[in-house]
């Protein structure tokens, strides 16, 4: 979905994260987060810290989906302090298919998106697919 013309700059910046991931450019996505990024997730390690942690998070999704997972933006809401992006994430593995709505919340800091909450709506489906 294209960005509305009135979208907040933080929302515009966040929009570039899933767009970069969707084209396979994880490095471009990582540049939106500071070195001391904190990433809260409901599965796996629960809290991923730093670029290394974030790389592990993305790497796990790649590994479990054979590189098929794709985020598609439904909507981005932003302010000077916070941003929320609603994503539909799909992935496939053998005969399994995942299609789940995810909300990614983030605080806006000088070096990028500092604290991040990554929330699949259907956590059961997410865990069954990604473990």
């Amino acid at each position, binding site marked *: 979905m294209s960005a509305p013309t009135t979208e907040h700059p933080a929302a515009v910046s966040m929009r570039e994260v899933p767009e970069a991931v969707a084209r396979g450019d994880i490095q471009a996505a990582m540049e939106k987060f500071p070195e001391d990024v904190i990433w809260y997730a409901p599965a796996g390690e629960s809290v991923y810290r730093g670029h290394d942690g974030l790389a592990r998070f993305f790497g796990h999704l790649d590994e479990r989906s054979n590189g098929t997972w794709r985020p598609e933006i439904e909507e981005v809401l932003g302010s000077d302090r916070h941003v929320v992006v609603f994503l539909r994430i799909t992935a496939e593995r053998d005969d399994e298919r995942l299609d789940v709505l995810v909300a990614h919340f983030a605080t806006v800091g000088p070096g990028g998106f500092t604290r991040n909450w990554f929330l*699949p709506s259907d956590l059961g489906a997410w865990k069954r697919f990604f473990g």
Partner: protein
Amino acid sequence: MEAFSRGDFETLESYLADDVVWHVGGDHPLSGDYHGRDAVLDYCRKAQELAGGTLHGEPIEILASDRHAGVFNHITAERDGKTLDIILAQALKLDAKGRWTEYWALADEQGAVDAFWAGVS
């Protein structure tokens, strides 16, 4: 959110769609999916009752459109000598009338949430 904090479930009810789905994450006795307005209200009443009415949310910021809402909520509560003090990211899907059709959330310290509710029945 304010209605929940003050135990005003009548007001909370007015925001819920008939077929609302409420996902409670984590690994504790209240975790699970609650389907329908009545089940969600029962869950909310039970959580507030178990916390002795101390479960309180102080929204830091609410970002909303006509389709979605995101709440950065500072949650505090006390129960049996335990305290809860977390930032909860709360996501909502809205229907055409602005009623909540789906809710899900994640805390910055999910382990603290699990420990707080441990042992309830």
